């Protein structure tokens, strides 16, 4: 038996449980419940109640991405620089949450922000009025940022870490003050990491599921929650087809952004997870 045959269980499994299911999504997306070809499934999203969710998803994902960039860039910059005694442990500490259960982290966030939660207890203790955080857009965006921040830090950190420090000295040498060093050299040179980070935050944020529901008491659903709703709760006889067309759109959106990423960063310098 040739050794290459050892890969056949792998090929079979991945075909059956990674490729074929996606083909099912494609099939359902373009058919009616009776199996006839149709494009009407995609028209569903023009309906106001769905369109509103999609727009909200895009808006929240955008806020989340911008905030992650604003918080994540300096964090990555400081991590990549010299100056902390235990940089390595710090890197691990900041990246660890990335690998941790999204639900648990959101649940923890809820505990903190809830009407009767720790934050409000603390506010009351110092004599301030309670604030209503859960249910607001702010809470949802905060939950998204909390979950996806490490995904922004990692690629930027990777690029900055690889950057030759003498390039910064060269810029200073040629007349850049510290601010200009950052704007003219550090940021342009870390662009692949930035693009990678934006993709790695924006994409999962758009499709995020459960985070928003939990932090808004079910008031503000995002695209992921919508998919869940269509498949599991709606009574529409076309629900598999509509749900599939929506999932397919998400997938295509992501493939496009990966294509874009490859173009900006062909050597995968950003070291993204993909």
């Amino acid at each position, binding site marked *: 038996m040739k*050794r290459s045959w050892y890969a056949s269980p792998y090929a079979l499994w991945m075909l059956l449980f*990674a490729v074929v*299911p996606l083909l099912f999504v494609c099939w359902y997306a373009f058919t009616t419940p009776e199996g006839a070809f149709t494009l009407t499934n995609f028209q569903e999203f023009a309906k106001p109640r769905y369109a509103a969710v999609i727009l909200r998803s895009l808006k929240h994902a955008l806020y989340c991405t911008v905030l992650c960039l604003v918080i994540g860039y300096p964090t990555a910059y400081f991590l990549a620089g010299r100056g902390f005694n235990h940089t390595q442990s710090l890197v691990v500490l900041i990246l660890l949450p990335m690998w*941790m259960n999204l639900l648990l982290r959101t649940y923890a966030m809820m505990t903190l922000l809830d009407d009767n939660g*720790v934050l409000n207890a603390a506010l009351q203790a110092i004599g301030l009025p309670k604030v209503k955080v859960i249910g607001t857009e702010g809470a949802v965006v905060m939950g998204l940022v909390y979950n996806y921040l490490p995904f922004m830090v990692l690629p930027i*950190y990777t690029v900055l870490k690889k950057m030759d420090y003498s390039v910064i000295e060269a810029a200073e040498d040629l007349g850049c003050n510290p601010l200009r060093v950052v704007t003219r050299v550090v940021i342009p040179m870390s662009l692949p990491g930035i693009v990678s980070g934006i993709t790695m935050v924006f994409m999962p944020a758009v499709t995020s599921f459960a985070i928003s529901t939990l932090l808004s008491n079910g008031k503000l659903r995002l695209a992921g929650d919508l998919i869940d709703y269509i498949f599991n709760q709606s009574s529409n006889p076309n629900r598999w087809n509509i749900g599939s067309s929506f999932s397919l759109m998400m997938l295509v959106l992501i493939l496009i952004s990966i294509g874009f990423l490859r173009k900006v960063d062909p050597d995968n310098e950003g070291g993204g997870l993909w």
Partner: protein
Amino acid sequence: MRNSRGVRTFRTVWMALVLIFLYAPILVMIALSFNASVSRSQWTGFTLDWYVKVFHDPSILGALRTTVEVAVIATVVSTVIGTLGAIGMHAMNTNMANVLINVSYLPMTTPDIVTGVSLMLMFLFAKVPLGKWTMIMAHIAFDIPYVLFSVMPKLRQMNPNLYEAALDLGCHPLKALYKVIIPEIMPGIFTGTLLAFTMSLDDFVISYFTSSDMYPNLSRIVYSSTKLGVKPTMYAVSTMMFVSILLLLVLINRRTKLEDMG
């Protein structure tokens, strides 16, 4: 470096704030799991009651069993399939291997929710009732790439003549596999196993779509409980999950750098 004092202070404060942001919710939750009061707003004393309750709650114990069972089976199967796959692809010509490797990027690239929905569609179409076994199938599928990407580098580092030397010395190919190749790539297999196990324990979204309320895992129990209001037992469950995942991650990080993975 010629950093002024101001810059250094700013940097320290900034990193401290980021760490507080990332860890405060988790630490608060862990603290609350030891709080004698049901209320989240006051600390009335240390207790282990919630942990005791967890181990007397049949639904939580059932979920724990499901979670561990799924993780163990999925890890074992994906380790075998992934390792064999890596060995097979290593022996193939590069074009063919590249195609197969790219298939592994698929579940890593696809958003979890789409993966979950797609598997659910397939199972429903094939009239397979959603439950523990469908969840296991799904977990194996997303665990395999982690094993593959941990084993592949070790195979590439291996001296290509090693296997041939074993054959040359009269070793049967199958024997050469477990006498020579497997010991050589063992560290990679072990890392892959740990990663697969962690990912299985950790998963919420894909499990949610490929299983049903009849066979909940721990994440699902936590998720459903949020609809009924928060119970401190859930803090205890979450804390235990956090700590076990954290320990696994620290263990993995000691073997490979987390930031180099993926």
